[in-house]
């Protein structure tokens, strides 16, 4: 049913609109325009006005010039060139892409699955407790989570090594946090664990739009749980899922920052842990290379908007797109 509404709406949207003078039409819908203009103005002031700062990525920005950025010399693409030419570039890009793809492939569906599981629980008290409890880790700062991961994976009485040892899977403790091959798994697991509950909230809200009669009807038809999820629940939340997917694809270059900084304590992990944001932090912000940091940010933004447009284009066919 919900699916039907979406389709109906899509059809309506595609109907050719009567062509009238745009000015007349604008005046006629002044009340709707009034709904969006305050937002447009706010965004214009707080997001667009400061955007001249982007220009500093083509300059050697000296912070003492403050807002008078025209006092700085133009250097063209120097900072971009420096980023592309730096010996770390290849590694940093690879890690960024791999880590964010992993986060996307595993971290994106995880909260949806949790929401679907919770939807199957009939015991309301249990459901509420699980919901509340799984959402707790979101509120722990990464410093605390990293400390926890470190003590769990420690070679000296870390619980994971103790467990593996007690079931005779290993003889010697494994130094998880100093071995490159484990880093990505540790990072992704910690992320999923931390955000799964919080991420599932919006899907739970979407699921609450399902007409319970549909389940009843399906039960009478003898459809299995799997089938019900597949045929009823998932189609209902699909619009939300698709929108979130588009947005996540646009975020593919944001592989993380604090989590990586705090979990990759051992410098030997750097070849697998260094991502754009940690790299820029190390060489840019803490060393006053503002233009460099801005240039890398701009590079990220251009790619992100490209990815987003692509994802949006593909999603258009399903009738759920951003624009």
């Amino acid at each position: 049913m919900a699916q039907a509404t979406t389709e109906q709406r899509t059809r309506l949207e595609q109907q050719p609109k009567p062509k009238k003078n745009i000015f007349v039409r604008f005046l006629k819908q002044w009340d709707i325009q009034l709904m969006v203009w305050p937002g447009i103005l706010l965004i214009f002031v707080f997001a667009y006005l400061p955007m001249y700062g982007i220009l500093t990525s083509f300059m050697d920005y000296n912070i003492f010039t403050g807002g008078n950025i025209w006092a700085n010399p133009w250097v063209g693409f120097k900072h971009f060139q420096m980023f592309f030419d730096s010996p770390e570039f290849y590694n940093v890009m690879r890690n960024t892409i791999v880590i964010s793809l992993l986060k996307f492939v595993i971290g994106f569906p995880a909260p949806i699955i949790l929401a679907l599981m919770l939807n199957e629980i009939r015991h309301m008290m249990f459901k509420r407790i699980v919901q509340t409890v799984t959402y707790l880790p979101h509120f722990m700062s990464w410093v605390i989570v990293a400390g926890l991961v470190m003590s769990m994976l420690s070679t000296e009485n870390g619980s994971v090594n103790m467990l593996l040892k007690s079931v005779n899977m290993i003889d010697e403790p494994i130094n998880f946090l100093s071995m490159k091959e484990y880093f990505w798994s540790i990072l992704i697991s910690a992320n999923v664990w931390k955000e799964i509950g919080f991420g599932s909230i919006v899907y739970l809200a979407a699921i609450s739009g399902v007409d319970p009669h549909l389940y009843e009807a399906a039960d009478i038809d003898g459809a299995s749980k799997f089938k019900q999820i597949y045929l009823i629940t998932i189609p209902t939340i699909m619009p939300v899922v698709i929108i979130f997917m588009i947005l996540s694809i646009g975020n593919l270059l944001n592989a993380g920052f604090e989590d990586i900084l705090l979990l990759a304590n051992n410098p030997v992990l750097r070849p697998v842990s260094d991502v754009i944001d940690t790299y820029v932090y190390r060489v840019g912000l803490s060393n006053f290379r503002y233009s460099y940091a801005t240039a890398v940010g701009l590079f990220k933004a251009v790619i992100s908007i490209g990815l987003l447009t692509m994802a949006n284009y593909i999603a258009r066919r399903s009738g759920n797109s951003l624009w």
Partner: protein
Amino acid sequence: MTKARKTTMLIVSAILVLATVLAGCSSDSKNKPSPSPSSNATNTPSNNPEEPASDVWEFGSEALEFSMYGHYSWYDVPAWDSTVAGRWLKENKKLNITPISAGGNPEQKLSTMIASKSLPDVMWMDRGADVERLREAGQLVAFDDYLDKYPNLKTWMGKDLNLLRSSDGKLYQFPNWYTGRANGNAGYVINKKIYDELGQPKLETTDDLYNYLVAVKAKYGDTVVPFDPDLAKDSQGLGVLYTAFKENASYTHLHANVRAVPQGDNLTSLFTDPTFREAQKYIAKLYREKLITQDAFTQTRDQIEERIMQGRVAVYAGANPTVVAMNAHQEMVKKDPESGYFMIWPIHKEGLDKNKIFPGTYTALGWNVNVITKAAKDPEKIFAFLDWYTGPEGQSLLFFGPEGKNWKGFDSEGHPIFTDDYNAEEVLELQKAHDPIMWNGNTGFIDPAKMKYESKLPAHEQNWAARYQSEITWPTQSNATEFINLVPQPDSELGIVKQRVDDIYTQAYAQSVMAKDDAEVESILDKAEKDAQAAGYGELLEWRTVEWKKNIEIIAGG
């Protein structure tokens, strides 16, 4: 203020004036005594004749108010009347300090304050790049005109002050914990119980240490960590081990700000240094045989502290192992007087002179600095306060509380005279509470003053840390003042080189510790040398050599 108290103040003041005059003469006859604490003139104009007729501004004579900012992610200037000293200064010296919060985000905060031209009056920060950048932009106030008028800093720091001068020859930085005396806590802490159970073997050379660690491992297996190097990522205990392999080798050679070894007239590559290589092979052997905790590079302070507290570490080394070890010692001896920790004389390689091994370093310039910005309305008055603060009165106020309770006046050596009411516990509390406002600690003054009290106590009542400081750590810390200011501007060509070299070093350091055998240590360091040279390490070393020689000249010439 009651009348009785006023009278007491007057008497005390009179005594103090005398005491300070005496103290001033004995410590440095060339300088006139610091303004006495009593001349705060809460309404005692009679004190004024002592004042020289110059335009010296007397701290406390008029109200002073300024804003202050600490450039650290973990620190904010506390509310001024939240501390005993702050309240006292507000009431008695009309001083009020407005804190500017860094909000845990100092880099960005400072950037925005610079860009919007709204700097605070005083900033408390690390020496080096940030300060230099502000100075170059003309944002800082030079202190040269004030130095003679307000002489405490000059008196206590002496010619080392010249090392703080910027390239234009002027002084912009007011140092914190500057000192001419050796200080610091780096060294080795030993678990007493384990040591006793293993028959108190000789523990002097690197071979002794190795054998001891092997014995620990054999006897206690996984339950005890033989060697805990603290946070190895920051050098710490492993850097301490490095100094065992060469006489006069310095912990500072491994610093991000130095990363070089002096050889004759030049600073040379760390990666090719035979001592460094030998040390790395030794460390790698310990790590490989699991004599060093495998968590060395990843562990957190909590984990370390927990292990030390439980007595599960045989040897604990670090840049500052004493705080954790002292707390653990005190807890452990409560249950078992035979347990606890003690410190040993630093380990050395067989054949070296143990009196030339220095596991830690200090510099005459101390830890960090205060700078006064051009935003300040009355920079001279602020300087007058800072100078008062670092002098005997200010320091005694911070360490022992307002005058009258725990101390009264100064003795002939200029140390505070402790009263019969001296309350050791209260003093400890005060010091803890005042830590966040100790902006310009004067080690040369306060350490002997503290020792004066400590040394009167019987050995078992002496503070654990204080005892080992006087017996072991202070005599074995070397002066690394010649290696300061070797950091190029971060956004310059050399600054970018430094950044690359640091990256290469940090990785190679951890890799070589985790190497499979000696040959791998060699090859990792060879590769690091090659990469570093390609990144421009050679030029960086050349530049550092020049700067280093300048330092030596200043130190020698003074």
